[in-house]
């Protein structure tokens, strides 16, 4: 097996050799070794995207001792999380913020010091408040301060600059049917809705698989010959797809069942991924945990949880109709199962090297609307989870809920740029100092102290291209 070290390959003569071929301009621009971090870790970063603008003010409402409680109650009636009685918010240590009552799993993780929240977080560039879901999601995920740029996501740029070793089978996964924008452009990422879906098994059984004893080469193996011509992008995409299918083929992603599936996956620690709502989210988290335990080298994962766009009928936890609460419960139970499963792995507490960051494209308006819901807002809550997280704290500076303190008089303002939270994870957990490459246009790295790990001087590739990017 070719066990070349990727860094050596890149800094050695191979770069020059490649520079002589077609596309030599590309390789010649490749950054020299000092910008490839020797500090890269094998941690995993899981980015959960709450699609539809999660109402952070309901996930993390002001508690009884909070100076913002009165303004909160003046603005929220039908969507209010109360402080007492049925549906009362859960008190949190070290803060006057409280937690939605149906996030019991997240609360336990917070109290144990493994979860943290960042308030008044969001996007600040370039048009700060973009109220379109798609555009705001796109801005956040492409991470260039607005717009889709050249269609490459921030997580792709992190992977590309983050010192990925050669012998890593499955560096990145985008859980879903279509690649998340943050991983767009990455040839490292496998996009899949569920691990167990992802295999070729539909040819007739008689000619599907190989039978070496009889010299039979089946349909699945023949596929490579169809796609190997390298003629266009489509063929390349096909080969990548077939490679990914081959990698995952031997793995049984279905849950363990003593009678029907004894080789299936058994979560440890009693972790229960079966969610009452948003079942796919639980399944995907379980698949990701399984892939992490299999040591496939997973470095970056994106998972989506939708149904947060509560313009109408958001509900509240005092009544049986509590749409938002259902969503919170799915998020909390799912992440809780994930944490339990990985922290009790046979090989040790794997959550020590897994960090979960939960983002949403923007928050929701402080004053609720007349449809029992809330409209698009701005500042929101980012949730962070991991074994190497300084949990049990709420980070960020809160701008306040009085009308004079609101952005444009309507929304929670943003005081913490989402890139500040993510770049701290990239440096302290992933060991990648190239945060200004992951987020072009971002500057002034200032860790909030959410993540454990050593700080590195932040950098990017920009010193090479400080005079622009035109061909020499």
């Amino acid at each position: 097996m070719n066990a070349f070290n990727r860094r050596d390959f890149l800094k050695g003569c191979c770069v020059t050799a490649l520079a002589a071929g077609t596309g030599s301009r590309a390789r010649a621009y490749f950054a020299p070794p000092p910008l490839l971090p020797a500090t890269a870790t094998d941690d995993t970063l899981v980015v959960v995207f709450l699609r539809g603008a999660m109402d952070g003010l309901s996930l993390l409402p002001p508690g009884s001792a909070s100076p913002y409680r009165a303004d909160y109650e003046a603005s929220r009636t039908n969507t209010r999380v109360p402080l007492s009685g049925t549906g009362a918010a859960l008190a949190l240590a070290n803060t006057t913020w409280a937690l939605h009552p149906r996030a019991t799993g997240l609360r336990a993780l917070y109290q144990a010091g493994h979860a943290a929240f960042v308030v008044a977080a969001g996007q600040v560039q370039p048009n700060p408040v973009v109220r379109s879901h798609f555009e705001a999601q796109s801005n956040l995920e492409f991470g260039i301060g607005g717009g889709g740029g050249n269609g490459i996501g921030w997580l792709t740029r992190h992977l590309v600059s983050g010192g990925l070793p050669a012998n890593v089978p499955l560096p990145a996964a985008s859980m879903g049917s279509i690649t998340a924008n943050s991983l767009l452009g990455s040839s490292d990422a496998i996009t899949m809705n569920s691990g167990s879906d992802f295999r070729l098994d539909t040819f007739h059984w008689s000619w599907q698989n190989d039978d070496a004893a009889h010299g039979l080469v089946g349909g699945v193996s023949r596929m490579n010959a169809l796609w190997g011509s390298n003629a266009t992008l489509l063929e390349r995409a096909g080969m990548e797809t077939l490679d990914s299918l081959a990698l995952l083929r031997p793995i049984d992603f279905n849950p363990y069942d003593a009678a029907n599936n004894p080789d299936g996956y058994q979560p440890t620690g009693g972790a229960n991924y079966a969610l009452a709502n948003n079942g796919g989210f639980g399944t995907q988290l379980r698949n990701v945990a399984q892939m992490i335990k299999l040591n496939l080298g997973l470095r970056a994962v994106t998972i989506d949880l939708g149904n947060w766009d509560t313009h109408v009928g958001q509900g509240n936890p005092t009544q049986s109709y509590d749409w938002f609460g259902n969503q919170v419960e799915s998020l909390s139970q799912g992440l809780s199962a994930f944490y339990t499963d990985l922290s009790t792995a046979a090989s040790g507490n794997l959550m020590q090297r897994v960090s979960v960051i939960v983002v949403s494209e923007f928050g929701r308006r402080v004053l609720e609307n007349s449809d029992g819901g809330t409209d698009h807002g701005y500042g929101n809550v980012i949730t962070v989870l991991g074994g190497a997280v300084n949990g049990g704290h709420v980070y960020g500076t809160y701008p306040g809920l009085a009308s004079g303190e609101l952005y444009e008089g309507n929304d929670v303002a943003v005081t913490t740029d989402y890139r500040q939270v993510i770049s701290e994870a990239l440096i302290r957990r992933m060991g990648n100092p190239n945060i200004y490459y992951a987020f072009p246009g971002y500057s002034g790295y200032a860790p909030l102290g959410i993540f454990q790990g050593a700080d590195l001087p932040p950098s990017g590739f920009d010193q090479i291209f400080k005079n622009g990017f035109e061909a020499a």
Partner: protein
Amino acid sequence: MASAPASAAFNAARRRLFDAVFAAVAPSIDPQLSRRRPGRDGLFDDIPESPEALTSPPAPVRWLVRATCGYSTLELIAFEALGSTDDARWQAWVARQLAPAAIDDSGCDSLLASAGFTTLDKTPEQLWAAREAIGNSNYYQRMLPIAETECATLIRQLHSQRQLFEVMASFWHDHFSVFGWDYDGGPLFPPFDRDAIRPNVFGNFRTMLQATCESAAMMYMLDLYTSYSGHPNENYARELMELHTLGAENYAGIVDDPDDDPSLPTYIDWQGKIQRLQYVDDDVYEAARVLTGWTISQSTWETRNDPNPGAFEYVQALHDAGVKRVLHRNFSAGGGQNDGTLLFDMLAQHPGTAHFIAGKLCRRFIGDVVPDSLVQAAADLFHQQWQAPDQIAQVVAFILHSNEFKTGWGTKMKSPARSVVSALRATLANFTPVPDNSPTYTPTEELVGRLQAAGQRLFYWPAPNGYPDTITAWSSTGALGLTLKLLPRLLEMHQTESYNNAYPFIVDVQGQTLGAFPNAADRTASNVIGYWCDRLLGYRPQPTFGVALDFFRQEAAASDPLDLVTDSTDNGQPQHVGVWHLNPPNTLSKHYTIARLRVAIGLLLCSPEFLRR
């Protein structure tokens, strides 16, 4: 704890993945290298977009692949009869397709009738009443309207003679995308397809725009039904501008005092008034005010006693009567429902709308990136003809007769839904999808389930921006992988009960092959695979033809006849596989030959040539 498998395939796979990783390391900021540089994809910058080495099918095949729901030999035969040169035939074909009412579609109509749909002809009021009556008691019955619409659409895509119409109906459904399985909106879906979209597919955009707005399915999708004076709901107004008309390409963001901002260009509209060329956030808020009071009867407390529950209703008392300002134009106080109709006029005739939609149309038919000169020419036509009853037909004709359309190839790929429909059309599948509530696992259920896994079940996209339309999206590993998984399965599925061998296949491979080669001596691998290559692809490209041929013939010569008749039986029932023949070497060519042919055709369906367009 299991570690990564270390087979040869795994190691080879990892080397290829690494290779791709290295190729991806080149800096992404240089636009020459970017993955999304127009006309290019991937950081594999030494891979040409449409290289000369790429063989392409004959022109008629290319055009029919792009302008129908799926190429088939029958389409080609009908095409060839339309004239004496390809160009003349194409003129005739397009003209015929653009007058769908004159095309005899009785075959498809019979299939639709045989499906026994019960909800598709119901009025909005009837569907509303049915939904209210069913309530939470029976999910299947409640959602039957959307389930039947899904099946009827598939039947038309598979069997209608009005293929260009179905291609464009699909386009408009993506443009005005409504999630069909919304719990409240799904039961009301059929009129959206039947009355708002389909009558206007080749017609007038302005007409379609207002019709989609007034449809209950769209009202629920974008919350317009609950927008009223003092509490306007901005959701519909935003998507109206961002997705339905001007497009995000014409969005200028949040601008204070936009009408006084010199950096925002204006133009003179059809009424001689100044309009802004780009929209800003204030326009969205004002447009939301314009459309207050546009609702569905009995959908809210305020309309709870109104007549015709479920029908569109404009409620003056809920309309914001104040002065409004959208795109620099003044809406005087007391405009009533005319505020809304004026807004639709403004947006339909806006040159930004023309450019946005022309761009989407060009990209649907030609390539992921199209020269802006073509887009602008199509946009100019769209704009000039904004009041013409055949506006869309004119623009579609313009695009289909463009040089870019006629000479292009390989710059798009089939999305999963299109791959499936074109596979079933090319193989002349005998398949009439119908909803089913029995315990039986039907081929319809299997098909929609697998299509959902591949990411493109019909009317299943949750956001109003519709399914993407680019190679980038559909060549992602999950979508392409699950499409490759789905396509061979089509040849193994059975009527009535998908996994039950007692029922006929939905695709009769054996029957069609024996019919094409009645003389057993002619059933050579070369003939049979060549035949199916022609059927599915319209030509015999390498390496695909060679791979399928070598697989099918095994150790036999390409010119040796193969036995496609002798079959195994189980309790007297034919198994449709052939006979087991893993005896001493050199007899794989006799091993389960009937099944092997289906696998070979599956390989053809999984080829890049089949997925390219």
